[in-house]
């Protein structure tokens, strides 16, 4: 490209070649107006591994049940202790490293977890472009559609969606501004703000632009559960975002995800609490949003656009980090890996502790101890499991909140070992 073109660009951000409405859900149509963002968006199919993140493309021979020819590596094979930790739960069947957005719908549809349980339509909330389908189903009412889909069987709901997360899930087609389209977050953040004394919080009306740069991600990258018979997707935030607050929430409603097959403990599974962990870290505190690191501005000619190739920032350190940190790329990578290394080593200590507890409860059980006698140990397992999982399931391996991650692991270790002690009494 020559200098002429460079100077041109500066003046023409984009051409409106098509009209976008609130029902335009195909990203390729949006792509006609915004080819640069679209180019990035479709590149989320790339699979590159980093030390602890990214993902590895594993070839497989497609079957009728699962037509995928490429998947991400199995976490269960990488660390078999996870099977013991989740014994009796679908996750012990199939759990893989997560990969780019392009795969979200297929990976959910074809995970073996679907084979061992029947899931509700609720799942769709975070794995498909549901904004248009929700509104159709609700006769124009987003929430009604959400409630309706939650109560369908997964397979029926699956027929109503076509795309993974798409432009319309994060953008208002008329202004291109960010907006939250997910009922789970709309309600979750309202409950959180209420607990902080802010009444009737309406995120789309009241959040700042910078906050929105994290909230659009918080629509999905959060801990969740299905509430009641209506299987309503709920984010357990009404007491706060710390692991202590969330556990307290679950204790209060006596919730359990599953009963542990080997110990009979009523266990809780934490899932990708990126938003919760990030909110405890120094970056959130400094006003640095998810998009700043995972969708950093990149220069295309004279234009600066948000890189829609959402991925590990370690694959894009210069744009993701060096705008704020003037250290060399290698140094920044090492800083991250030092943090992740500490998290990972303590996570392993915590994992061993939990497995020891599970084995001890197992043998105590076979040795004929009564439920009453096992009760304290099971309670400890429930806590230890949730705390450990809160870090294990959080996908930055501690980076989003380094000290908080190791603090939580320290408490988890305490619970596991106390459980063992309680059995010896």
């Amino acid at each position, binding site marked *: *490209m020559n*200098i002429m073109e*460079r100077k041109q660009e*500066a003046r023409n951000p984009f051409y409106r070649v098509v009209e976008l409405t609130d029902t335009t859900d195909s990203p390729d149509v949006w792509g006609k107006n915004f080819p640069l963002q679209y180019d990035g968006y479709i590149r989320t199919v790339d699979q590159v591994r980093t030390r602890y993140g990214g993902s590895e493309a594993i070839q497989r021979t497609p079957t009728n049940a699962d037509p995928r020819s490429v998947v991400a590596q199995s976490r269960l094979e990488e660390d078999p202790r996870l099977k013991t930790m989740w014994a009796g739960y679908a996750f012990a069947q199939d759990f893989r490293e997560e990969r780019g957005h392009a795969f979200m719908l297929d990976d959910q549809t074809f995970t073996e977890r679907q084979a061992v349980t029947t899931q509700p339509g609720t799942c769709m909330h975070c794995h498909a472009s549901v904004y248009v389908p929700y509104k159709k189903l609700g006769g124009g009412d987003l929430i009604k559609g959400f409630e309706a889909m939650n109560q369908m069987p997964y397979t029926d709901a699956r027929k109503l969606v076509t795309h993974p997360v798409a432009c319309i899930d994060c953008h208002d087609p008329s202004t291109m501004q960010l907006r939250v389209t997910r009922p789970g977050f709309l309600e979750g953040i309202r409950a959180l703000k209420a607990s902080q004394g802010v009444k009737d919080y309406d995120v789309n009306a009241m959040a700042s632009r910078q906050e929105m740069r994290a909230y659009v991600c918080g629509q999905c990258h959060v801990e969740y559960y299905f509430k009641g018979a209506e299987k309503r997707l709920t984010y357990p935030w009404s007491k706060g975002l710390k692991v202590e607050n969330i556990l307290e929430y679950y204790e209060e409603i006596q919730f359990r995800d599953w009963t542990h097959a080997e110990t009979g403990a009523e266990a809780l599974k934490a899932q990708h609490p990126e938003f919760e962990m990030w909110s405890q870290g120094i970056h959130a505190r400094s006003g640095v949003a998810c998009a700043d690191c995972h969708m950093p501005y990149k*220069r295309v000619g*004279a234009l600066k656009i948000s890189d829609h190739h959402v991925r590990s920032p370690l694959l894009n350190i*210069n*744009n993701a980090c*060096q*705008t*704020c*940190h*003037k250290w060399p790329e290698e140094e920044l990578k090492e800083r991250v890996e030092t943090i992740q290394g500490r998290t990972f080593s303590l996570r392993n200590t915590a994992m061993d502790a939990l497995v020891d507890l599970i084995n001890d409860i197992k043998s105590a059980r076979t040795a004929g101890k009564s439920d009453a006698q096992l009760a304290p140990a099971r309670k400890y397992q429930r806590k230890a499991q949730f705390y450990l999982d809160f870090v294990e399931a959080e996908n930055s391996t501690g980076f989003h909140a380094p000290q908080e991650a190791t603090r939580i692991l320290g408490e988890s270790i305490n619970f596991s070992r106390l459980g063992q002690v309680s059995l010896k009494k």
Partner: protein
Amino acid sequence: MNSGTFTGLFLGALIGTVVGVGAYTFVYAKGSSYLTDNPAACANCHIMNDQYDGWVKSSHRAVATCNDCHTPDGFFGKYMTKMSNGFWHSYAFTTGDFHEPIEIKQHNRDITRQACRKCHQDIIEAIEGTHAEESTLSCLPCHGSVGHLTR
């Protein structure tokens, strides 16, 4: 300005023929801006906008221009630096082949390190005391953002 453009052209053409990018680059990309002391001129390159916008907001906007901090003392050193930066940055700009965000090269960082002393010799007299040239403090770890809050 004219003499600047002329020298620029001359230098540009000279090196240009060697590296294959003509004086056209230097002139068109306004590499000659390097030869003025007007900060706005630096921003002729959109790529310099961040620094320019930062400088306008900085404590130094009223007291130091880009060149006060980015060129060494003395006419000769000053213009040699301007020309080599002017040419190479024009070259980089044209080919688009440079690290982003822009990283200051050691040579230019040293110039900037020294620049502080041009104006602040007095106040640092005590802390620099008897320190030899090689063990003088770098101001940048603590004051790196005084010129333009880029980082």
